[in-house]
């Protein structure tokens, strides 16, 4: 499996660069991963990442985008509870990009 | 599936039925090639006169090519009115199935039909021509 070198530590990632072990995740790592894509993590970004990690802890799966939108709306106000807002934060797709920074496995679509 | 053998046996039986047919159809039959008879009165008379039996062309040629010869004869007469045939020996013959060929071979049953039946050939000569009355020695 592929390895990523971060702060002198070897971290296992999958073929698309998602962490294999949720426990390897740190805030620094999230910022590092985001920076690779040219994104500086703001409060708004963290809101999403934190929600994803919380949700994952409970359900062992990343939430579907609909739920994410709803929850962000609840937390950040209804004007931010839409897909457009999330795509502004994560141009590569909120599911894919945010999950990566949150240390979650790559989300699956329909199988 | 458990009834697989049914299909397989079906195929095998069907196969054997078709390809084995010639074998068991002929079972017990003797393989006898037809023997032609050249003993009509006209032929015997010819033999007496010439000391041998011979047709308008050699026997081997006639066996393989008579249908073509007859076809040519028909066309010569019907289309071009040509009634004379000169053979490979230079002899002349009157072109006529009825009066030349069947004059000698007046035994259709023992001559024409023998091979034709053996090989299931149905020439259409006699759709027009009259079958000669059998004359045998």
């Amino acid at each position: 499996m592929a390895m990523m070198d971060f702060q002198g530590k070897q971290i296992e990632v999958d073929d698309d660069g998602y962490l294999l072990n949720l426990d390897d995740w740190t805030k620094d790592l999230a910022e590092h991963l985001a920076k690779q894509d040219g994104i500086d993590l703001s409060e708004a970004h963290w809101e999403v990442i934190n929600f994803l990690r919380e949700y994952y802890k409970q359900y062992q799966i990343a939430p579907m985008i609909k739920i994410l939108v709803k929850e962000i709306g609840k937390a950040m106000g209804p004007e931010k509870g839409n897909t457009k807002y999330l795509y502004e934060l994560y141009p590569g797709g909120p599911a894919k990009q945010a999950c990566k920074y949150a240390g979650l496995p790559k989300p699956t679509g329909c199988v | 599936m458990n009834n697989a053998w049914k299909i397989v046996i079906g195929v095998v039986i069907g196969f054997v039925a078709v390809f084995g047919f010639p074998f068991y159809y002929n079972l017990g039959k003797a393989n006898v090639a037809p023997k032609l008879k050249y003993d009509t009165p006209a032929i015997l008379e010819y033999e007496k006169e010439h000391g041998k039996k011979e047709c308008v062309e050699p026997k081997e040629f006639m066996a393989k090519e008579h249908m073509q010869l007859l076809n040519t004869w028909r066309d010569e007469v019907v289309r071009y009115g040509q009634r004379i045939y000169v053979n490979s020996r230079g002899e002349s013959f009157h072109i006529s199935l009825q009066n030349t060929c069947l004059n000698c071979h007046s035994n259709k049953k023992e001559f024409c039909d023998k091979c034709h039946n053996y090989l299931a050939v149905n020439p259409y000569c006699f759709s027009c021509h009259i079958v000669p009355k059998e004359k045998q020695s």
Partner: protein
Amino acid sequence: MKILIPFFAVIALVVIALVGAQASHALFGIWIPYAAVLIFVFGFIFKVLKWGRSPVPFRIPTTAGQMKSFAPWIKQNKLDNPSSSLGVLGRMLLEVLAFRSLFRNTKTQLYPGTKLTYGSEKFLWLGGLAFHWSFLIIFVRHFRFFMQDVPYPIQIVEHLDSFLQIGAPLLYITDVVLLGAVTFLFLRRVMMPQIKYISLPADYFPLLLIFGIGATGVLMRYFAKVPVVSVKELVMGLLTFSPVIPQGISSLFYAHLFLVSTLLAYFPLSKLMHMGGVFLSPTRNMANNNREVRHINPWNYPVHVHTYEEYEDDFREKMKKAGLPVEKE
């Protein structure tokens, strides 16, 4: 190379027969044909039984139309999606006698500007049908050499085949059709890039061989005639197991016979077995009644599954929290 090898192989076969028959009539007129028929019959049966040894574990017809519905107001396509044995019989007959599936053939074309079309393409169907049917009729016609007292039906076939009454001996329509169809099938293999790409020597060889058989047959009938009475005598000798070699049969006949023998012997080892295989194809010879009639897999065996109990053990707490009923508290 893929074409040259089979081409020279067929030429070599003809030469072997022409030369060899001079040396030994008995070898080419008796022993090789006998051996070929034996290989053919036992090889064919062996192969079919070999297929038959493997079961058909699942009922997997390729359905090609509306299935039998629960509702009478939805019309079933009984031939292309049969649900009964009778329907399957109909489907198989259509397939074997009329090449139903090939009749569907389309030709895909890609036009500039991302446009794809699928036109009807019937030439393969027509060529295949012409080839197989003329081959069958010629085979049946040959029964006049295989039987003493030729049965009437065979005479009818022979009569119909020559009903145009062209020339003497009468021209058989199937002789022309067969040679034409073989040529067509050969040319399409050579000229269509994709078909050429996937063709093997084993695809060219039978076509060339059959062309050789047809050509020698045509030569014997119309051009370099052989004494047919003697030929039949030879064949009948084989069939009644009292072989004879009559005099005066030319090498051309032995070449024809040798090519036929080669075809017979080659048959069970090759793709020509599609003749038997078509009847055993599970996507065609089964009814689409899976939900109505149980199908048994003879090698079905118990498998290790993840049971509900194990599942509940894994998730009991989460299930209870979510308000789902559980078997064990």
